[in-house]
């Protein structure tokens, strides 16, 4: 359930970058202050372990398809919330850069969806509460399954919110929710089962490893709760702002650029005088904003000749042909320049 | 500088799970000696080595390195004096590039940047790895990794080199190259190894550990000629000291 750059708007991507960066900064401070030095290599190597473990598949019971470990909850059990969050975030950074899982702008979303929920919600408030300190095998499995399911449900819902408020995908909110949540219910159960199997295996073979994770930061302590509450408040606030943006100005950046440069006014008054200005005006007429299909929008924009979807469709033909030809030319031009640069480098 | 550089007295170590790794180990190593510690798997070799730079704390007994007893206060100085090269070079080379790795120790000693750079350069040249300076460790071969691992320790200018299984996993050429390198070091050297031929070539003295106690301690050739001792301690005579099975000629 990695978010991809291609589905994100800058406003949502940027906001989530901010949230993720803040959480990383806070967790780094906590880890540096509260954990001993031996955790430094441990976090790094466990991150690499998750990376490797995610590539090993298993057959999902009763379905025959194959799955792999996510690892967020497992890391939280082994390392405690802060170190686990940093570790998950670091794995996601490498995945986004080397394997195009997600993307650079989507990194904020992915770190939040896949790191924050398991480390700061599912582990301290569900897993630890149910499992207690010396869980039996069944209790541990139940705790792991419920925690994994809750963590993934929240993550999946967060993906839906981020995607819908970005407005690149046309998938309606309700359909998306109905699509995502059940799938992640199944994934969550499997993730919980796998986590429980691994944890109980390790608990039997090397009990001190599982115990080590329990010590560093006691969950449910006041500071953690405060942090959680403030994060929740912050994300609600940000979410509110983002959705307001998305509804008022479907494209926040475009709106901002237009405001800053005053483009709209310029084209409005000096329409069709100069070729560049003319094409600029065309561009705006071509795609004024998200609401271009509504006649009301056309009317409101006045001079931009947006009449209605049907009438406009034929009018757009000219622009589209030119656009298509231009696209091909610019592509050829880009690769042509690349070719020349390459040749020059070879002779240099 | 005292004459005894490493002194271990009645060292005992019991792991948390109750395993007795070292029962009662006493030994003295002198300045400039090259000593091998050999023994079967589980004899306590690695546990002993980990005491020498204070990573493990003994249940009872005493360790002196140079002029200092090993205590919490002398630990930093002792860790500088005792250069420890681990068996798996991947555990030792944890920094992004060879340079950073070799510079890790000197930086921790608080040396200024220019001196660190000088040291790194000198040490890498000494082990024949100057050309690897900017490479990340995962692009190195096994032999290269080993030599760089030794460089990471040499850069702290230790008096004593402690190496766990230096030749394990190396191809014959890399092994030969490494042995040539080790022979040239003027440091006091302590090795553990199952490569008994290397022991014969590099160490004048050998200590045999068996079930957590010192079973024998003496000149290497003498020890390897004691067949009864070797059999008891799950060891065997190095190939270079056995008669040739093909032509029948002895050494």
């Amino acid at each position: 359930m990695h978010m991809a750059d291609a589905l994100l708007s800058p406003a949502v991507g940027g906001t989530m970058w901010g949230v993720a960066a803040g959480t990383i900064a806070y967790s780094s401070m906590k880890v540096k202050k509260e954990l001993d030095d031996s955790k430094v290599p441990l976090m790094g190597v466990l991150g690499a372990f998750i990376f490797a473990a995610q590539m090993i598949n298993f057959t999902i019971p009763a379905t025959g398809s194959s799955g792999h470990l996510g690892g967020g909850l497992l890391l939280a059990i082994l390392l405690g919330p802060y170190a686990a969050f940093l570790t998950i975030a670091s794995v996601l950074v490498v995945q986004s850069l080397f394997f195009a899982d997600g993307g650079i702008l989507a990194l904020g979303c992915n770190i939040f969806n896949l790191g924050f929920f398991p480390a700061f919600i599912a582990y301290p408030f569900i897993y630890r509460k149910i499992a207690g300190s010396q869980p039996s095998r069944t209790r541990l499995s139940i705790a792991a399954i419920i925690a994994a399911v809750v963590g993934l449900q929240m993550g999946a819902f967060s993906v839906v919110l981020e995607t819908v408020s970005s407005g690149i995908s046309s998938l309606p909110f309700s359909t998306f929710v109905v699509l995502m949540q059940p799938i992640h219910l199944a994934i969550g159960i499997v993730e919980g089962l796998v986590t429980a199997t691994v944890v109980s295996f390790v608990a039997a073979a090397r009990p001190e490893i599982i115990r080590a994770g329990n010590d560093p930061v006691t969950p449910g302590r006041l500071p953690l709760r405060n942090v959680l509450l403030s994060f929740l408040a912050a994300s609600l606030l940000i979410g509110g702002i983002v959705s307001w943006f998305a509804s008022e100005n479907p494209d926040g950046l475009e709106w901002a650029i237009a405001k800053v440069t005053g483009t709209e006014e310029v084209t409005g008054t000096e329409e069709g005088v100069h070729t560049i200005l003319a094409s600029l005006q065309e561009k705006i007429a071509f795609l004024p904003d998200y609401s271009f299909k509504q006649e009301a929008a056309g009317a409101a924009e006045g001079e931009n000749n947006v009449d209605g979807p049907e009438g406009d469709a034929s009018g757009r033909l000219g622009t589209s042909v030119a656009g298509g030809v231009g696209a091909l030319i610019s592509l050829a031009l880009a690769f042509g320049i690349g070719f020349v640069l390459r040749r020059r480098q070879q002779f240099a | 500088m005292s004459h005894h550089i490493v002194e271990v007295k009645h060292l005992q170590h019991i792991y948390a799970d109750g395993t007795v790794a070292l029962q009662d180990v006493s030994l003295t190593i002198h300045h400039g000696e090259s000593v091998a510690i050999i023994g079967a798997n589980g004899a306590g070799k690695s546990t002993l080595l980990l005491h020498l730079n204070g990573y493990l704390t003994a249940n009872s007994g005493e360790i002196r390195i140079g002029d200092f007893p090993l205590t919490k206060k002398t630990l930093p100085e002792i860790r500088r004096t005792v250069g420890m090269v681990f068996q798996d070079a991947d555990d030792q080379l944890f920094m992004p590039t060879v340079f950073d790795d070799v510079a890790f120790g000197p930086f921790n000693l608080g040396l200024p940047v220019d001196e660190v750079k000088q040291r790194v350069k000198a040490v890498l040249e000494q082990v024949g790895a100057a050309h690897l300076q900017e490479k990340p460790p995962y692009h190195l071969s096994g032999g290269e990794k080993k030599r760089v691992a030794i460089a990471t320790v040499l850069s702290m200018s230790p008096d004593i080199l402690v190496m766990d299984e230096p030749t394990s996993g190396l191809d014959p050429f890399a092994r030969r190259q490494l042995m040539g390198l080790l022979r040239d070091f003027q440091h006091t050297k302590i090795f553990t190894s199952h490569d008994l031929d290397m022991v014969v070539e590099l160490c004048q003295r050998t200590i045999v550990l068996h079930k957590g106690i010192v079973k024998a301690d003496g000149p290497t050739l003498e020890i390897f000629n004691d067949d009864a001792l070797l059999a008891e301690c799950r060891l065997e005579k190095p190939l270079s000291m056995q008669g040739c099975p093909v032509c029948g000629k002895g050494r």
Partner: protein
Amino acid sequence: MRSIDGAVLDLKRLDLLATGDSVIHRLDARAKVLTTLVFIVTVVSFNRYEFTALFPFFIYPVVTASLGNLPGGYIVRKIIMVIPFAFVVGMLNPIFDRELFVRIGPFAITGGWISCASIILRTVLTVGAAFILVGVTGFLSVCEALERLGTPRTFTVQLLFLYRYIFVLTEEGARASRARELRSCGRKGLGLASFGPLIGHLLIRTWLRAERIHMAMLARGFTGEFHSRQVSGFGWRELFYVAGWSAVFVVLRMENGAQWMGRLVTGVLS
């Protein structure tokens, strides 16, 4: 599912590209990270029905890859591997968005198809930019740049450790998984029963390795601080690089370059 060995080889290959020496490689990593960010943000800032205006943006990945001497075929292949995923996501748009967008002769193209094509194009551009960033910069320098741009040291050290041991642990994981596959004799014996202990063992070995690494760090005087030398600096060249590209992106964002060129050629403009 990708094979472990394949993934590691791929990682190593991309990593090795960064050791190259070119005008682009020599730039300070911060300049390249910032430019990549500006590029991605501009590309995704178009609304969902924008398609043609995205094409001129190819100038950036193509020029950077060429100046950086990256093997074009390799980068293209890496990008192509991602396209199916983008296509699956993009395919939902034509289903839900059937509004007529443009009519070309007998063909009616809906907004959904346009936005689907736009999503794929965005994927190619953003994914390409990420690969190229790594190829001309290298992970270590990216981390160094992140740190000098304000990322906490704890996190960059974490990234470096993670990256260093990916190479070690994926090999360990591959060995374990190969052993399991070989002994399951082609049956579907790869269920949870063997997966748990396999991963568990890998985890225990990982834990022990972390202990040994910590030992090796302590043995060399580690006190909790990492020191590093700073190699490069942010000079006029870097400033010019970031400002130049950003200007190009903003112009291409404001002005549909493809439209403009197309009109010039087709002569629709009078």
